[in-house]
Structure formats: structure tokens, C-alpha cells
């Protein structure tokens, strides 16, 4: 992201050009991110296709209640973020700070819930490695499911964490500086990032928690 302080940096002719560059930059960044998660989704798809029974069995050992609540938390946070972007474009900076802090709070709540879920799974020996244990009929590929589960949710949680830190930082800037005075592009781009993180989870939730739940 370009600097948040100066109105127009020296390489740009005007604010319009700078805004265009920053926006395009964020979209290109998100396309990189999609491919980054894409590698993991491919691994997931290939193995779920090869070991459908083990993946179904493993999926039933996940805590769907935690996952469902977290989905709701992230969706609400995205909504709050959308209002924050709107507040930025209307130049209501006090409200902007408040809404950003709300978004960050919900993001943090997501991480806390995820943390409890992780703690439970570690206790149940569902962390792959030497201590992994399951009484499922095909333990090796149940472990494979959990390897992919930990990597995907771990990388996602990292993205949430980065997002929360940035949003808190932005909230304080909104309150205590003039950074967003007549200038909503940074908030808008932060919003794009946050919605992306949200969308990744919307894909992760059914893939991880909802395979063959009914049977």
C-alpha cells in the first residue's frame, strides 16, 4: 500500500492517478493471494477425491459449532467494515474509528474462538505429528485431513491477525490524525483485504466442517 501520510507522492501527477494505482495494486495483490490459497485448495481437493471416507470421518471430528459461530462472527465483521468504508467516504472520522475498532474486535473474537478450538484439538491429539491419535479406521488419511486443516486455517488465521493489527492501527489514525481527511482510499483498500479474508473462510467452512455431516 502506498504511504498513508502524504496526499500525493512525487511519482504521481495527481491524487486521481495515485488512487487508481493503489486500487489496482490491491486487486493484483489479492489475485496473488487467491493463487496462494489455491495451492492448498488443490491439495485438499485432490486428497478428498482420493480418500473420501477418511475425509468424511475426519470432518465429523471437527467442532462444527465453533466453525459456525466463527462464520457468523466474520460475516458480521465484514458488514461492520462495509459501514466503516461508507463512514470514510462521508468523512465521518469519529464514526469511522469506532466502526473500525468494532471490526477489529470481531476479528479478535474470531481468533479467540479459533484458539479454543485449536486447544481442544491439541488435547484430543488431532495435531499431526508424533502425538497424533485417532481411532478412525484409516488413521493415516485422517491425519492427512488434519494436516491440511491446520495449514489452511493457520494461514487464514495469520491473515486475520495481520488484518486486525492493521485495522486497529487505522482506527487510531482515524481518531488522532488527519490521515483520512477527504481521503478514503486506504480504508477502502483495507476493506477489500478484509472481505477477501472473509471470503476465504466462507469457502473453508463447508470444506472443513460439513463433509458428509448427515450420515
Amino acid at each position, binding site marked *: 500500500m502506498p504511504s498513508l501520510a502524504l496526499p500525493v507522492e512525487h511519482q504521481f501527477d495527481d491524487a486521481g492517478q495515485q488512487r487508481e494505482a493503489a486500487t489496482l495494486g490491491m486487486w493484483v495483490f489479492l489475485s496473488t493471494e487467491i493463487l496462494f490459497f489455491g495451492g492448498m485448495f488443490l491439495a485438499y481437493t485432490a486428497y478428498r477425491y*482420493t*480418500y*473420501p*471416507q*477418511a475425509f468424511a470421518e475426519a470432518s465429523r471430528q471437527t467442532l462444527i459449532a465453533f466453525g459456525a459461530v466463527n462464520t457468523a462472527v466474520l460475516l458480521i465483521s465484514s458488514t461492520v467494515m462495509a459501514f466503516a468504508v461508507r463512514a470514510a467516504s462521508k468523512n465521518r472520522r469519529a464514526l469511522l474509528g469506532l466502526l473500525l475498532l468494532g471490526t477489529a474486535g470481531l476479528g479478535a473474537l474470531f481468533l479467540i474462538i479459533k484458539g479454543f478450538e485449536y486447544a481442544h484439538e491439541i488435547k484430543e491429539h488431532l495435531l499431526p505429528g508424533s502425538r497424533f491419535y485417532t481411532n478412525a*479406521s*484409516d488413521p*493415516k488419511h485422517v491425519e492427512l485431513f488434519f494436516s491440511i486443516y491446520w495449514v489452511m486455517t493457520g494461514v487464514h488465521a495469520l491473515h486475520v491477525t495481520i488484518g486486525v493489527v492493521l485495522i486497529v492501527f487505522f482506527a487510531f489514525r482515524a481518531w488522532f490524525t488527519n490521515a483520512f481527511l477527504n481521503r478514503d482510499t486506504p480504508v477502502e483498500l483495507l476493506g477489500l483485504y478484509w472481505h477477501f479474508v472473509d471470503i476465504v473462510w466462507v469457502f473453508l467452512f463447508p470444506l472443513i466442517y460439513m463433509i458428509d455431516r448427515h450420515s
Partner: protein
Amino acid sequence: MSTFLHRLFPKEASNLAPPVDHVFVALLALCSAVAFLVLVVALVFCIRYRRGSKANRTPPKGSPLRLEITWTIIPFFIFLGLFFWAADVFFAMSRPPADATEIYVVGKQWMWKIQHPDGRREINELHIPVGRPVKLVMTSQDVIHDFFVPDFRNKQDVVPGRYTTEWFKPTRPGRYHLFCSQYCGTDHSLMVGWVYVMEPAEHAKWLAGQPAPDSLVTMGERAFHTRGCSGCHAPNAAIRAPLLDGIFGKPVPLSDGTLVTADDQYLRDSILLPNKQIAAGYDPVMPTYQGQIGDEELNAIIAYLKSLAAKETP
């Protein structure tokens, strides 16, 4: 002249070598012609239009579009033709004939272990009679290897955890290099051996000179009992398990409603990873044999199961 050519061109020692070489030579001719043409044209331009030469430099008239389309379309059709030809040969290379002798190959760092159907074993050497197609059924104990006989023009990766196959019909007696061509660690370049292609009479003599062990099927049958397979996979066993007589090559319905063909890979997985695919109507009670049973013994058991199928369909 011919000896010089032989230094630049590998021997043709299998049925696959001539068709592969035909594609290669055709490509070589085409590519040499194109490279030569580009070179000559560029050279002529470079000499004729060098700075200071007295050439006519009035810019050419007309649109270059026709030229552009020509040199786009012509390669397209040539490439398409080459693709089909090479793919056709590739199909023949990938599909062993039904009457091929099946030989099991196990790769490990850094040696080749070979099991003949009559139970004979060899290390880094393969003796086969000329004129009889051979199908190699290969797996690896550790990392990926690759069974490559340059004079036969065939190669195939040897992958742990699965069977791959490769076939050829040797056409010339002689001694041929066997190379591992997939990098496999420190002594990769020493994972080499020889394939001996012998006249049938000579091959018979070689066979006679070796102590005759039990055939692969017999060894497999013995393992089938000593490993306890027959305790469950029998008509009157206490635990209900599928009967395996004649299962090889048949479709097997699975508990998730799909059908698989009982091939080498399926039988291997069923022994090592019994819960990967569960036969419909049976409980997943079979224990895994992973880590307890070696690749060579596994190959013997599969050969035995295959022989049961062969017996059933005369």
C-alpha cells in the same frame, strides 16, 4: 561411417526404438530445415543490408498481415500432425500386450531388485529372451526412481506407494545399459545395471544354470497362508471377508457405491491401506500390513491372486 554414426545415435534394440526414432528423425529434419532457413535468410539480410552496402532500401509496400497469418497457420498444422504421430507412438509404448511376461521390479536407494515369474531374482541385471514382450511392474521402497534403457527407448518413473508399468519387446541380442534417470540421492549415478537380451536357447541355458527356486506364485501362496490371509479370505472362515479366487481384473463394488477394477494397484492398496477403499457389504475389519510386509513378498502375493484368476478363466 557407420561406426561414427553409432557413436552419435543409440542402438535400436527393441520394437519401440524404430517408431520413436522415426518421429525423432522427422522432427530433426523439420527443425534443421527451419533453423537453416532462418539462418540463411538472416545471413542474406545481414550481408545485403549491412550499413554502407548499395542495396535498395525503399520500404516494402503492402500489409504484412498475409505473411503473419501464413507463418502462424503453417506451424499450427505441422505441429498438430506431429502431435498426433508422437501421441500414437506413445499409446503403443504405454499399453503392454496381453501376452507379455510380467516381471516385478523394486527400486531402492541405490539398486534394482528384479523378480521373475519363476521366482528367480536378480540385482541390477535383467536377463530376457529376444523377441518376447516383457512387462515390468515396478514400485519403489523409498524415493522416486526411473527405469531407463536407452537402447529400448522407453522409461518410466518408479514411484513409492504405487505400481507403474513399462514394456518393450527386445529385438536384438546383446548387453544394454540400464540407468536410473530420476535423481534419487547420493549414489544416483551408480544405480545402473545391464539388461542382457539372449537368444532363446541361450536364455534356456542361463535358466538351467541357476538354482531353481519356487515360482513367484508358489511363494505367494505360501505367504498367503503364513501371513494369515487365508484365515479370513476363505469360504468357511469365522470372519466374513471377500473371497479372492478370480478377483483379479474384475470390477469390485465399493461401499461408497463406486466400482473399481481389481488391478495390481487395488490389491496393493487393499493389503497396505485396507480402509482406503472398502468393498461393499463388508465391515472394515482388515488390519493394515503396512510396514510388516515387504514389496517383494507383496508382489508374490499379488502374482498368486492373479494366478487364481487365470485358472478360473481357461
